[in-house]
């Protein structure tokens, strides 16, 4: 029977939440890797029972775990993320040169076609690739060695490569987003890269429309229209209709355009979701109300989705990797909060219910639609 498996990474372990197509009753499994920070868990579209998890701690460093049975059992894989060549320096918070140092894996992006190929976005910002199922990792150093690399500067959360988007129609094209450098595109399978930030305006940097230096929080694409990209920037929700060559703002009537995640409906390429957050100094939702905002017009016109979500005394955040979309006929939307709740909507956001309410702070949410 058709079902879904939600993969949740938290500050203190990983959880899998499973349900049938109705998405009413849920089975919760976990914590896996209790006590460890799980920045991301992702499943292979080519082999859905193959899962990858980024497991880390300040004490014992980075591990990569892999499951080949849908998360029932896990095996540690390769965890050596060595920068290619002499890493050099980027800018530190105070503007001084700082050596590139590996800290952790923020995001894992499995190939849509090959279960042994997976990409990893890491802090300090770099992109790695494994072609042996996570056994070993090699840097795609053309990104870090882009001429602007020495000028990249960390955002408050660290200088992380947090978003990897693969073009499903063009295997050579991929996107990577870095806080706080911006978005980059490769048209040769990750060998060379160029920044694609034209149209972004960031008041927090000396040159608001600089080629690099923008704090991009997340980008999203609908697979049927790979040249249309949506972006949640530090401030501003943005859209590109030409594969990132030009961006324009679509924040429209949002109550605040600061936020982290952005997602696209599985079957309606012009329907997108964001979670507005009060501000960069108040990392919680506005007015004590947890509201997802949906646009059915590709931006600019937004409606608040509140049914089933707390509408008083709620002061949580939703992080950039903590929203996901399933591909069932009635599109499911999921997100997790810093307060440890994971909410699900089985009707494209019209109504919501918590799957779980009291997990550790949620860092990431992914969902797999299972046959």
């Amino acid at each position: 029977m058709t079902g879904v498996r939600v993969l949740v990474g938290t500050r203190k372990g990983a959880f899998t939440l499973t349900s049938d197509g109705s998405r009413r009753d849920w089975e919760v499994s976990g914590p896996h890797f209790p006590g460890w920070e799980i920045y991301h868990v992702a499943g292979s579209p080519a082999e859905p029972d193959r899962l990858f998890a980024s497991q880390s701690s300040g004490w014992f460093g980075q591990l990569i775990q892999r499951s080949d049975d849908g998360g029932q059992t896990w095996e540690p894989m390769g965890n050596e993320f060595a920068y290619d060549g002499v890493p050099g320096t980027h800018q530190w918070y105070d503007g001084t040169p700082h050596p590139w140092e590996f800290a952790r894996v923020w995001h894992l992006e499995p190939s849509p076609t090959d279960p042994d190929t997976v990409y990893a976005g890491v802090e300090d910002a770099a992109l790695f690739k494994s072609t042996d199922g996570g056994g070993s990792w090699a840097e795609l150093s053309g990104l870090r060695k882009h001429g602007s690399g020495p000028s990249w500067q960390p955002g408050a959360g660290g200088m992380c490569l947090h978003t990897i988007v693969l073009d499903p129609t063009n295997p050579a094209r991929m996107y990577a987003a870095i806080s706080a450098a911006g978005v980059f595109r490769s048209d040769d399978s990750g060998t060379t890269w160029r920044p694609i930030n034209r149209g972004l305006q960031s008041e927090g940097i000396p040159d608001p429309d600089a080629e690099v230096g923008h704090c991009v929080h997340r980008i999203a694409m609908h697979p049927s229209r790979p040249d249309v990209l949506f972006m949640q920037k530090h401030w501003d929700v943005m859209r590109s209709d030409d594969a990132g060559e030009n961006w324009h703002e679509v924040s429209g009537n949002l109550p605040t355009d600061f936020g982290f995640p952005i997602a696209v409906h599985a079957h309606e390429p012009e329907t997108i979701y964001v979670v507005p957050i009060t501000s960069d100094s108040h990392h919680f939702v506005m007015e004590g109300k947890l509201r997802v905002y949906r646009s059915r017009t590709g931006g600019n016109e937004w409606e608040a989705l509140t049914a089933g979500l707390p509408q008083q005394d709620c002061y949580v955040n939703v992080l950039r990797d903590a929203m996901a979309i399933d591909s069932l006929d009635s599109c499911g939307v999921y997100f997790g909060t810093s307060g440890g709740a994971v909410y699900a909507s089985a009707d494209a956001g019209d109504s919501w219910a918590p799957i779980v309410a009291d997990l550790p702070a949620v860092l990431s949410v992914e969902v797999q639609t299972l046959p």
Partner: protein
Amino acid sequence: MIRVVLPAHLRSLAKLNGEVKLDVDGEVTQGAVLDALEAAYPMLRGTMRDQATKQRRPFVRFYACEEDLSHEPPDKLLPDAVAAGTEPYLVIGAMAGG
């Protein structure tokens, strides 16, 4: 036979219960014990020391016989009691937090 005690997180990572018992060829130094430990349990590579430089991770400490050996060079011999297996070599996750 060298006895090694690991912190709980590394025991669970290596799927171990209790102490590790290792045979170390040649001189029983810190480096030789950690090399043998990582050879027997490859999933521990990178969790106690950097894989390339072999530098100890900042919040990991090494104790034995009531002494902190964390700052000792890797080629320094461990105490006889550790080499003889009467005392364990302790890998510690430093206390931190609040």
